[in-house]
């Protein structure tokens, strides 16, 4: 005879989101992407493929860039989360955001938050060659730009020389 299932359909999730402490009781099946958008109300994080392929939903959890569509809100309990809304201060863009603007590194803008959060999570010193920048960006899909302007934007901020 099987014992009693110790799990629960709902979980309490406490997290620090962009510096603000939040606590919500949510369904166990709630994805972190939907927690951020629908429960916390921050819609800068975009949901594209919802199966870990496109990278649009990338956020930073405890310092690491992750796919929020492939993570449960329950797994983020106790963590520190940063989203794209945490980048600009009082409307002043970060140097990377400014470079995206100046290099026309976006068109429809759907993927941009994911790219920015991936870039925000890493140490530029680890990416000194254009090939390394391209490899870093391979986890984020963009269907408008053809990537060249995104690579240009990153290389301009990180002072990586492109051929």
């Amino acid at each position, binding site marked *: 005879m*099987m*014992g*009693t*299932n*110790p*799990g*629960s*359909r709902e*979980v309490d999730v406490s997290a620090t989101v962009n510096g603000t402490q939040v606590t919500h009781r949510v*369904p*166990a*099946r709630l*994805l972190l992407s*939907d927690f951020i958008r629908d429960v916390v109300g921050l819609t800068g994080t975009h949901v594209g493929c*919802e*199966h*870990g392929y496109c*990278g649009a939903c*990338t956020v930073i959890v405890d310092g*690491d*860039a*992750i*796919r929020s*569509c*492939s*993570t*449960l809100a*329950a*797994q983020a309990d106790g963590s520190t989360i940063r989203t794209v809304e945490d980048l600009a201060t009082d409307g002043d863009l970060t140097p990377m955001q400014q470079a995206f603007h100046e290099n026309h590194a976006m068109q429809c803008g759907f993927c941009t938050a994911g790219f920015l959060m*991936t870039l925000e*999570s*890493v140490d530029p010193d680890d990416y000194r060659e254009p090939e390394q920048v391209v*490899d*870093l960006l*391979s*986890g984020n899909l963009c269907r408008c730009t053809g990537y060249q302007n995104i690579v240009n934007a990153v290389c301009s901020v990180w002072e990586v020389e492109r051929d």
Partner: protein
Amino acid sequence: MKPAPFDYYRPATVEDALAALGTSETAKVLAGGQSLIPAMNFRLSQPDLLVDIGGVEGFDRLEVGPSGVMIGASVTQSRVMASDEVANTVPGLRRALHHVAHLQIRNRGTICGSIAHADPAAELPALAIACGATLFLQGPAGERTVDAGDFFLGPFWTELGEGELITGVHFPSEPADTVTFLDELAWRSGDFAITGLAGALATRGGSVSGARMVSFGVSGAPRRMTGAEQAVLGFSAGDDGSAVYGAAYDDGADAVDDVHATAEYRREALGALAVRSVRAALATNGNGTGV
């Protein structure tokens, strides 16, 4: 594209995790979730209970010793990749992890989770076989160990029994005369392989003296390439590679046709990868630098 409802449980001990797994026939172990949660989003997987092992005591161990590297069930791929100690003891791990998915996925995905999931196109199962890794399992009947070479039975099908989980994997230290390598063909950097090859080559006096070669993404499970392992013995830098190519091509006899590539294409790619990676590995051992 949302998971079906399930119960969630986050135990603190392996005993509690096993007890929970025993309460349901459809329970699943959640480690990094980088394969499981997408599958649940698609409703391909609909467990009624998820046992999140992220907080299980001891599962976060990453120990490097003279015999090799012991990787606990909740250790992420990024953590293993970042460790210089691991790279010095089992250089193949960092080399292989460069091919595993993308940064964002490696930050959550675990070594043991990828092995337990047993995707036929995944890198880590093949690497585990090539390295001669040992899996540590625990279940209702107690603990046991299984050689990686005996673990993978078919697509997403392993030796794991009902209610059993992987608690860790041990990769042995790379011998001084050996180079471990992994090479693959994929549509996009970080994607699953259309054809891949993991291997360990021992060399003596500039030629190959022993080999373990494993294909992945070719058929339903990672597979030892017994023909190529024989054909590569004695291979040296001046060799034209045709014998290795032919043997590797023959090793791919059960290659599958799918939307990504035909079986014939996979067999030719396996042959080309075999020659390319054996040459690279031999060059590495000759001058002592990394692949």
